[in-house]
């Protein structure tokens, strides 16, 4: 996934060697999902699907099937603002190899050709088929969150109740809380120091952040609007909170591309909380919605406590 994953495991009386073993198992799980989902590795499951699933339905494991089904569902609900078929556009704009010199005609061709509608899933047989050749799948918008969810499950299986995991500082899962605290305190920087960091208290919950400045190629932010196959005009920073890091990760993309008037993209599930930092005539402002956002008063915002019931 081309990024650094880290985790913190407070002792809570457990032997250090057991904590290390649990942490290694969690990081192994993340490494395994990187091997499976990477669009950059020739031997990943994703690359295999792009080679083989055009000719035949390919059976896959339940976890990967669930992930792809969630991605297609998010594409539908978001009106195409989240789309794993965006890989061709990512490649054309140089986000695969760092060379951002794409002619507009190529973008048009890429954009017109493929969407998640081309990903055909059979839940009964647990197979995936690609409707047309040449599709470039890219799970970069959701893989970090998914890997973190799976790693958190590994930690729970190992009896770990308190931990913080993050991938590239943009997808985070919090188990319990650190010693002598109610929650993990997360600070989210607002670009260019336009405002103090947004603070989020996270306990048994997940969070994902999306921001166009995270990676730039050729003067463009790396967030592609799948509808136009071009870099999107985005909010400054978008934050989604919920139970699953995977869901938060995926929905942070539609949110940053089109947060609407209320900081919630079309189709976002009710259980997710979202907010964006953006600028309007009066300067920096925050717009948000969802259960956690609605639970705090306007004067408290954008401080969000995510102690979910």
């Amino acid at each position, binding site marked *: 996934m081309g990024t650094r994953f880290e985790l913190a495991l407070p002792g809570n009386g457990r032997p250090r060697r057991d904590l290390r073993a649990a942490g290694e198992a969690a990081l192994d799980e993340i490494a395994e999902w990187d091997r*499976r989902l990477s669009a950059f590795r020739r031997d990943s499951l994703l690359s295999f699907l792009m080679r083989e699933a055009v000719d035949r339905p390919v*059976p896959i494991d339940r976890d990967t099937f669930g992930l792809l089904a969630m991605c297609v569902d998010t594409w539908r609900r978001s009106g195409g603002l989240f789309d794993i078929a965006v890989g061709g556009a990512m490649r054309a704009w140089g986000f695969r190899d760092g060379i951002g010199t794409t002619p507009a005609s190529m973008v048009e061709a890429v954009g017109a050709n493929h969407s998640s509608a081309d990903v055909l899933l059979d839940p009964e047989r647990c197979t995936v088929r690609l409707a047309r050749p040449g599709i470039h799948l890219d799970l970069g918008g959701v893989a970090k969150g998914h890997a973190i969810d799976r790693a958190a499950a590994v930690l729970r299986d190992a009896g770990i109740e308190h931990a913080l995991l993050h991938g590239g500082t943009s997808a985070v899962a919090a188990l319990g809380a650190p010693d002598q605290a109610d929650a993990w305190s997360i600070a989210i920087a607002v670009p260019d120091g336009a405002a103090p960091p947004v603070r989020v208290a996270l306990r048994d919950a997940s969070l994902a952040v999306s921001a166009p400045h995270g990676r730039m190629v050729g003067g463009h932010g790396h967030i592609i609007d799948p509808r136009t196959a071009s870099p999107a005009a985005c909010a400054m920073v978008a934050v989604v909170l919920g139970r699953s890091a995977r869901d938060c990760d995926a929905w942070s993309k539609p949110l940053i591309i089109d947060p609407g008037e209320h900081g919630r993209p079309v189709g976002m599930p009710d259980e997710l909380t979202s907010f964006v930092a953006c600028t309007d005539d009066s300067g920096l402002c925050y717009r948000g919605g969802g259960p956690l956002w609605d639970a705090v008063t306007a004067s408290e915002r954008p401080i969000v406590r995510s102690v979910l019931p």
Partner: protein
Amino acid sequence: MTPFDRRAFLQSSAGLAAMALMPDFLAAAPTADEPVGFAVIGAGRQGRAVMSEIQKLEAAKVAVVCDNDPGRLRSGLGRAPGAEGVEDFRTAIDRRDVQAVVVATPTHVHRAIVEAALAAGKHVYCDAPLASTVDDAQAIAKAARSAKSVFAAGFEGRSNPVYKLARTFFRSDSVRELIAMRAQELQKTSWRYPSSDPARERAVNWRLDPEVSIGLVGELGSHQFDVVSWYLGDYPTSVRGTGSIRLYHDGRTMPDTVEADLGYEKGARLQYLASLACSFEGRHEVFYGSNATIKLAWTHGWMFKEADAPTQGWEVYANRQQFHKDEGITLIADATKLASQGKLKEGVGLPNPSLYYALEDFLRAIVDGSPVGCDALEGMRSTIVGVLGHQAVTSGETIAIDPALLELA
């Protein structure tokens, strides 16, 4: 034609002609009228990886997943939709819809499962090393020899397309005089696995248990010793080793760092290093030769030619990679096909994990009688070298390897 076009055309066509001399090692996957039913015994990390690769093969399906740990079994079943889960390996072996059994349990329990599966007439793929004792390795090889079904040892290097390609160069005098050999497997991991059930902790951490484990040399080194033996066509005659705990002072007695020195006929030697305390340069094997050096790193391989080595033609247009002051020619398994498509650079690395190719060879052997990647006898030999290597590390003594030990009575 512009100068650039002409140069590209010449490079492409000359490269194509030259590449055509290179054998392709990516054969089409086997086909069958009815998919071969597999039972995967052991649903830990290796077992789950096996299931993922079997799913890619059209002529195979996972019918049964077996593990005596409910959590691992549940996790394994998630990898193989449609498969049934059982806790007893005998139940899995006895099923009529199972024709092939993959043994992916801890090494020291392989023997009983392999013998039962072969006795039931099932084809068996046994993860490598085959066993943790010389007796068990020999017993497995004997059972395989007596059986009418297919047996494959999971020394994956022999099925790895990059390793196969490099071996053709090695065996065809590209290296010329073999000067030295070096191999390493360096990881940064404690080799300890978490368990929420203290009663299962020892079983889960069998690799650290001196009663049953053959340590780093046996578990990791045997795979690399097998590659060397396969390349040389020869097995070592002696092994000496040392080991110590360099990092993990957590109550273990199994060394986290080992070194071994294996001697072969005609004076060739292999220097081996394995550690869990440092991951620098990971896993690789290097064959130093007077004309060229070959470096293999599982998914990748390179050849470094000496300045006075004869030019073979094809390498002029080959893909290259710089390593400090040395330039390596990238060994690409399906170079001819990729060159014809103008995608040579995209071919660096393997299209699938090496485990896929080992299982594909096994399946092909079942379907059409092709040879397996590593048969029982070769698997036994490399396993025994690993077992003796571990004994050398533990005892600190040089152990002579009796060639008779590597043959079946």
